[in-house]
């Protein structure tokens, strides 16, 4: 056990200290230019001709709590761009679709991370080395595909007499709670916590970070995405414009090579937060536009 702990610690330290070294050793992926509008759809036929890269995912053993043995260890990644938008198609095998969170269950998710400047630490960046993260979540997807998962959806047979000042009738759909007296009890919503907003524009949340534990939702949300679960596999498309005018726009552009890394969470195995499988930095060679 102690030897294993030592081994794991050494690996962790090595990973932390060598983001650039690791980059040079990765095969990477060429991101082709496509002269078309890219739909937010994993089933788009345009993906067929895009090259794929198998991305290995490994343990997250730097920030506690660790994921010593993450559930998902392979991710298939494709990416294309049309000069304005960059799009990723990420797919992985997951035995169960976990898109709804009860008090003791978690949901599937995937994230893409790119440094805002030239480079950043794999540890979700570091102080002064910001990263941009595009995080797709299965529960947000469920809210969009079906309806916001309120008490009536999570617990169809549940009963509550009343909620103070709540307008309407059973089951008291919270999207109708526009009066401040009722909303007092929806703390997360009222203080603007993105996790607590019933209305979802898209299933992807754009975030920034400068190291583990500093994850912050971006003020401007420019990414979009969609995930479909079929035949034991998730296929997720995430798109974002290269340039939005946001100070946190990464330095990616057609013709450049930028590093990206990935993380996957298997909700069915209790993965959330720091309990995830992560990749190293993968160089993305963005093809020149217009050809």
């Amino acid at each position: 056990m102690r030897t294993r702990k030592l081994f794991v610690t050494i690996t962790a330290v090595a990973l932390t200290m060598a983001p650039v070294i690791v980059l040079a050793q990765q095969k990477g992926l060429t991101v082709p230019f496509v002269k078309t509008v890219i739909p937010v759809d994993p089933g788009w036929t345009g993906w067929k001709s895009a090259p794929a890269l198998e991305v290995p995912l490994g343990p997250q053993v730097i920030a506690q709590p660790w994921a010593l043995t993450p559930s998902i260890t392979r991710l298939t990644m494709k990416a294309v761009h049309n000069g304005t938008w960059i799009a990723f198609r990420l797919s992985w095998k997951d035995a169960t679709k976990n898109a709804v969170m009860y008090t003791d269950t978690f949901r599937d998710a995937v994230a893409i991370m790119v440094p805002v400047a030239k480079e950043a630490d794999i540890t979700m960046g570091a102080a002064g080395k910001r990263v941009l993260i595009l995080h797709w979540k299965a529960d947000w997807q469920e809210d969009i595909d079906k309806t916001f998962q309120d008490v009536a959806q999570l617990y169809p047979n549940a009963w509550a007499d009343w909620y103070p000042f709540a307008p309407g009738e059973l089951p008291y759909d919270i999207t109708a709670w526009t009066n401040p007296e009722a909303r007092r009890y929806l703390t997360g919503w009222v203080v603007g916590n993105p996790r607590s907003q019933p209305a979802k524009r898209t299933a992807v949340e754009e975030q920034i970070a400068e190291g583990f534990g500093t994850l912050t939702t971006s003020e401007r949300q420019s990414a979009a995405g969609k995930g479909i679960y079929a035949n034991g596999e998730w296929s997720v498309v995430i798109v974002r414009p290269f340039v939005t005018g946001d100070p946190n726009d990464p330095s990616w552009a057609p013709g450049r090579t930028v590093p990206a890394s990935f993380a996957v969470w298997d909700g069915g195995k209790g993965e959330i937060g720091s309990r995830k499988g992560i990749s190293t930095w993968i160089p993305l060679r963005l093809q020149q536009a217009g050809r």
Partner: protein
Amino acid sequence: MATVKNWQIGREMAYPYPETRPQRQFAAVFDLNKCIGCQTCTMACKTTWTVGKGQEYMQWNNVECKPYGGYPMGWDVRLLEKLGPQPWEGSRFAGKTIFEAAPTGERVLGFTPEELDWSYSNAGEDEAAGTLDKGAYETMPEHKLWFFYLPRICNHCTYPACLAACPRQAIYKRTEDGIVVVDQSRCRGYRECVKACPYEKVLYNPVLRISQKCIGCYPAVEQGIQPRCVTTCIGKIRLMGFLSKPEEAKADRPMDFLVHLRKVALPLYPQFGLEPNVYYIPPVSVRREFLRQLFGPGVDHAIETYLKGKDDPELLGLLHLFGDTKEIIESFRTFPASGEAAGYDKKGREIVRVPIKEPDYLRPFYDAARQVYRHNIS
């Protein structure tokens, strides 16, 4: 990892953050000899705080019946089982705290309760340990057949496991009063706190998708008012105040007197290592072995002190101040000559004064005003 001093376990221990005690520490004492399990405290807290969406199952304050009850079910026995037997050497805990017993890659040893475990808060109610044999009779000092109610809120621990476990530092301990709160804008619902808290007093809201917990009624505390669960207690079993460090204990401060001086009020599962700040006067007739597991080695002394209460005017006086005012009693005094006890606020203003012994009223056999005879009713 830092090393911090935990007076409840009589030694230093490992904790992810350095020792930083608040200016004042929110604390409470519950007298378990008086709790009747009426659940008024639970309803008071629920009506005040957990009547929103996603909070339907939440009981930031709960009252469970020991030995078999628990909210969530088995919260304590499951953790005790994970820890295994852990020894005390006198008043020094020689075993592993939940921080020291944390598995590789984890900050805390804990578990996530299953959803259904939250549904049975009344299971085990009034179910006694032991069997009622024919011809049985009450034995002292320990009853053969026993059960008691254990009311619980967040303990606003000095070394919270929830705070330690959060990878985003979304839980903080207020410096002004030591109340532990979850930042509702920073929490992302990872639920490491739910898993870590050995008392299972952080609860996940599945509608807002963030975690929530007892806030010590801090808006009231800030105004010098005791929490809802304390003021509404019908049995007057609770008192809330501020606890000083052991070396700074003052005899006229209610919490210091009960916890540090008389040592009649004990922490809940001190062996977990969190230095919880809700203290209990143990129920005197319950099996000692059980009580020691719950409250540590101070049980025998606490019970002995409590039973000698009639000869301890200060203790008796202070116990009589429980439930007599909604204001926080910063200091107290007993008056042996007049048989009274009084409580004072921060400025020394008298808030409340009560008799320690109710006066006797002798009523005539015939009541002329009502034209009836008074009879003893048995």
